[in-house]
């Protein structure tokens, strides 16, 4: 029924489009200037030699234009503009859309490969089917990535010809390998997708592995181009005084000195690491949103069970990748500081300082959404009531951390409020706006989310390990110690100078990371072959949980757009920081309000397009069209299963 409606809608749309086109053409022709009939008759009497004044005027104008064009010497354009929206916004939106699809296309093969590998090791067909379900999303997304990549390239060549030419001067040796790798990626992607079930498992896994290797290599090359714009060189202790010196990859005039230094520039590896992790988190969330979409469409319990499981796995991937993401972000920020204090200060204390309050709201929402989904998921297990009493405490901890993280150092206040406070910062709340409080909040958020996951994992299960009490206590001690250490350094940070305070972030991060690793290592044997107190009922989860998954995907997408703005905007009026100045009318950093409008439009376009990807991907599960057969209701997945 739905399919017939869609086909009918497309037909109506096509019909209306044809009518509108014909009517528009007719309107334009009807409104074209025409000579009065009597003038034509008069001219025929006069012969062809004399032109009426209007014709003479047009002919003169054409001749003058031609003469001017011939006299004008060829001049290379530095910039061209796009009416209404401007060049920068055009390139901005195209680059962001390309990046979002590229991130998805790079991330999905990574966890599809891992899921397929797990299925191969465990000899369980359901993992294989799940990996295939994820891979179905790739084909159309790959086309979208390539389309937006081409669109972006053309936009750069047309709108920023001189700057694009400069980048070609620097990176032309990398273009051919990039194209060859792109070709290889297409080869591996399509053979991986269409070869599902056609090759042996080892061969198919090899294809998946190669797809990931090639995709990562492509990203590393593209990252060199963009990070060069931010840090065109490296830091090295060339005079042996123990202090790293800046070694530029280009001369003061911009001429290339070292392609190696331009490629392996200062922020290249931090961006690579940050993007790999962020891509996996983002890809997992989008795949989970697809599962949620299919869950909400599902007509049978079997379908609901399958897509509930798929959504759970997608979200699990997203959250597991999301937990270390703040650490990767911290590493990237520290490297930006190390490269240029000016850039670092601009980022955290200058133009972009308020952006991080917005980022805190987004990440806080992500943590809340992820935890909420896990808590709702406990309802799938029989005997899941036991741990639900802890949820309120976790919710309180998460909400408090969220509030601390989103508290700005300087409040948005009226003149009278500033006078009452004795300054633009609140006498008490401004303490929460400092780095110590924020580092503490994000680390406790991560620990709390991990605790939610541990509770979820234990729901309906009983360890049969002989040392279960001892191991559980050990886990509790590790968890409490990490939390205590984080809070200790957070409070102590208020009593030391800023340089020491910044360094406190390192033990905070390491203690949380160590806690996650140690508790996981203990948990694996502790709950291996655990006794089940009841069956897991996949599909038995409130529908609101599926909207939570879509909300998480939306927040991830919005966050990526926002961070794209800060990464690119940091350069301020430079195309290549410190080397090539932007002299276009857009040579300034737009306000956060304007940036959020552009990000919002980009997110809406992306979700419109990803909706098309979801719809096209869901078609493959439908029955083939058969004349006279009854229309199919919903997408019935062949071989759908319950875990």
């Amino acid at each position, binding site marked *: 029924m739905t399919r017939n409606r869609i086909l009918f809608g497309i037909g109506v749309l096509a019909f209306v489009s044809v009518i509108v086109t014909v009517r528009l053409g007719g309107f334009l022709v009807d409104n074209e200037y025409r000579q009065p009939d009597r003038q034509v008759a008069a001219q025929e009497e006069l012969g062809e030699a004399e032109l009426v004044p209007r014709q003479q005027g047009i002919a003169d104008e054409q001749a003058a234009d031609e003469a001017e064009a011939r006299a004008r010497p060829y001049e290379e354009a530095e910039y061209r503009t796009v009416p209404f929206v401007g060049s920068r916004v055009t390139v901005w939106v195209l680059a962001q859309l390309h990046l979002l699809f590229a991130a998805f296309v790079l991330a999905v093969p990574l966890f599809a490969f891992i899921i397929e590998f797990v299925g191969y090791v465990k000899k369980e067909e359901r993992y294989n089917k799940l990996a295939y379900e994820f891979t179905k999303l790739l084909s159309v997304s790959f086309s979208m990535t390539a389309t937006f990549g081409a669109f972006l390239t053309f936009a750069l060549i047309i709108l920023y010809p001189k700057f694009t030419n400069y980048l070609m001067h620097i990176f032309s040796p990398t273009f051919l390998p990039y194209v060859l790798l792109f070709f290889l990626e297409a080869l591996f992607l399509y053979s991986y997708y269409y070869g599902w079930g056609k090759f042996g498992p080892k061969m198919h896994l090899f294809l998946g592995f190669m797809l990931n290797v090639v995709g990562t290599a492509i990203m590393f090359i593209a990252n060199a181009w963009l990070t060069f714009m931010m840090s065109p060189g490296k830091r090295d202790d060339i005079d042996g005084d123990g202090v790293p010196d800046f070694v530029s990859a280009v001369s003061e005039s911009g001429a290339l000195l070292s392609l190696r230094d331009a490629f392996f520039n200062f922020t290249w590896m931090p961006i690579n690491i940050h993007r790999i992790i962020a891509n996996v988190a983002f890809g997992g969330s989008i795949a989970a949103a697809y599962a949620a979409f299919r869950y*909400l469409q599902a007509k049978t319990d079997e379908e609901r069970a399958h897509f509930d499981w798929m959504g759970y796995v997608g979200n699990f991937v997203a959250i597991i990748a999301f937990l270390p993401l703040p650490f990767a972000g911290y590493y990237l920020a520290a490297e930006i500081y190390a490269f240029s204090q000016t850039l670092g200060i601009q980022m955290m204390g200058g133009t972009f300082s308020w952006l991080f309050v917005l980022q805190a709201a987004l990440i806080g929402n992500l943590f809340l959404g992820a935890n909420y989904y896990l808590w709702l998921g406990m309802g799938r297990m029989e005997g899941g009531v036991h741990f639900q009493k802890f949820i309120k405490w976790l919710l309180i901890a998460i909400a408090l951390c969220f509030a601390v993280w989103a508290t700005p150092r300087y409040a948005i206040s009226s003149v009278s409020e500033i006078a009452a406070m004795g300054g633009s910062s609140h006498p008490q709340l401004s303490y929460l706006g400092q780095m110590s409080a924020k580092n503490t909040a994000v680390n406790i958020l991560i620990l709390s989310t991990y605790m939610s996951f541990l509770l979820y994992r234990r729901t309906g299960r009983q360890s049969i390990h002989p040392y279960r009490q001892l191991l559980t206590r050990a886990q509790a001690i590790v968890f409490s110690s990490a939390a205590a250490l984080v809070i200790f350094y957070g409070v102590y940070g208020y009593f030391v100078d800023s340089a020491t305070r910044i360094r406190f972030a390192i033990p905070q991060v390491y203690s949380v990371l160590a806690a996650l690793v140690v508790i996981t290592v203990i948990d694996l044997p502790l709950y291996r072959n655990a006794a089940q107190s009841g069956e897991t009922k996949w599909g038995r989860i409130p529908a609101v949980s599926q909207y939570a998954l879509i909300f998480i995907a939306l927040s991830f997408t919005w966050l990526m757009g926002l961070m794209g703005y800060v990464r690119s905007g940091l350069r301020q009026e430079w195309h290549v920081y410190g080397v090539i100045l932007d002299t276009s009318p857009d040579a300034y950093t737009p306000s956060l309000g304007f940036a959020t409008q552009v990000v919002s439009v980009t997110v809406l376009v992306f979700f419109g397009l990803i909706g098309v990807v979801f719809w096209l991907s869901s078609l493959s599960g439908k029955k083939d069209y058969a004349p006279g057969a009854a229309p199919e209701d919903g997408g019935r997945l062949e071989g759908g299963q319950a875990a």
Partner: protein
Amino acid sequence: MKFSVPMPLRLVLLVLGTTAFYMYLGQIVPQKESHPPPPVLINAEMTTEDLVAVGAELASGKGQCLVGCHTVGQSGPLRYPDLDGIGGRAATQVDGLSELEYLAQSLYEPAAFIVPGFADGMQAINQPPINLSDDEIKAVIAWLQSLGGTPNVTLDTDLGY
């Protein structure tokens, strides 16, 4: 009769509502466009007093000195040394360096001497991205001298760089 919003409409509302919410947050925070600093014109007729005024302008603009790095007249935990009184104490900061030599060195070679208690991090301001000209640096020195000292630098002064 129970009214139920159809699923596609719910999804559209969720997408639009979430995006609108985040966009709204972006509108309520302080808005600031960051423009490149305006060019500061220095001409040969400028006196030391003129240079002090130009130097002050450079310090809070193109020179980025007061944009999140140094302060004037603040105490407590600071990122970099407070500049209040620097004109008076510059001559005694490093043995063997006069007031002018110390100020010039701290701008051209900031890593050569780090004030105890602070970390290295300042970039040479005659290089990109700050990229001040020699005359602009003389103006900044004149302004620094004016903070607790007596400015004497002119455009003819040889800074040794």
